[in-house]
């Protein structure tokens, strides 16, 4: 289907722009929680980008990579917010 493929490529381009824009908050954010929020958005936008690319490029392994990215963001946030006070 030509129209859906073009739409998926456009969506993946927009999601890539979102991923890069999230880095700005990661650099800028005054507190570490802001940077972690940017990382969470990075994880979810990256996961959306992966599953769209899996549909476009016919690479089903990218869906597993999307699961890994989402879980990684959660693990990083849990480790940071629940570490013992130093």
């Amino acid at each position, binding site marked *: 289907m030509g129209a859906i493929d073009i739409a*998926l490529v456009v969506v993946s381009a927009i999601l890539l722009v979102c991923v890069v824009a999230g880095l700005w908050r990661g650099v800028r954010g005054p*507190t570490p929680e802001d940077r972690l929020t940017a990382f969470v958005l990075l994880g979810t936008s990256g996961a959306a980008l992966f599953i769209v690319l899996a549909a476009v490029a016919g690479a089903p392994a990218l869906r597993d990579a999307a699961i890994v990215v989402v879980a990684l963001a959660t693990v990083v*946030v849990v480790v940071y917010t629940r570490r013992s006070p130093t």
Partner: protein
Amino acid sequence: MRDVVVIGLLAIGTLFFVAGTIGLLRFPDLPTRLHAVAKADNLGLGFIVAALAIWALTGEPGESAGVGVAAKLGLIWVLCLVGTAANSHLLAGHHRAAARAQRDRVAPADANDGEGPISDDTRPSGGAP
């Protein structure tokens, strides 16, 4: 018809992602930024997963077709829901504790120091001395 539905859902999902990203960049405070990111995650990813699941269930045969693909996409979305909810609670709670610690370090609190009618104290005794 199916093309229209799939492209429409993709467009709505992308719109939510763009809105969430703009919210992350432009909102003034951590809780508002968390709210924007949570909307982008749940709704944006939900609509994109719905579009791709419809395409997988009704599309042409290939690598991205079948019920298994649609089920895996649904599981990715559910994992993201739970993860984002947990992340939001953890980050907001940690930020609040850190902000309170910062405030106490700068100006140690007296009794009823600067607190309005609604106290931050959530102990069962209601903060009674």
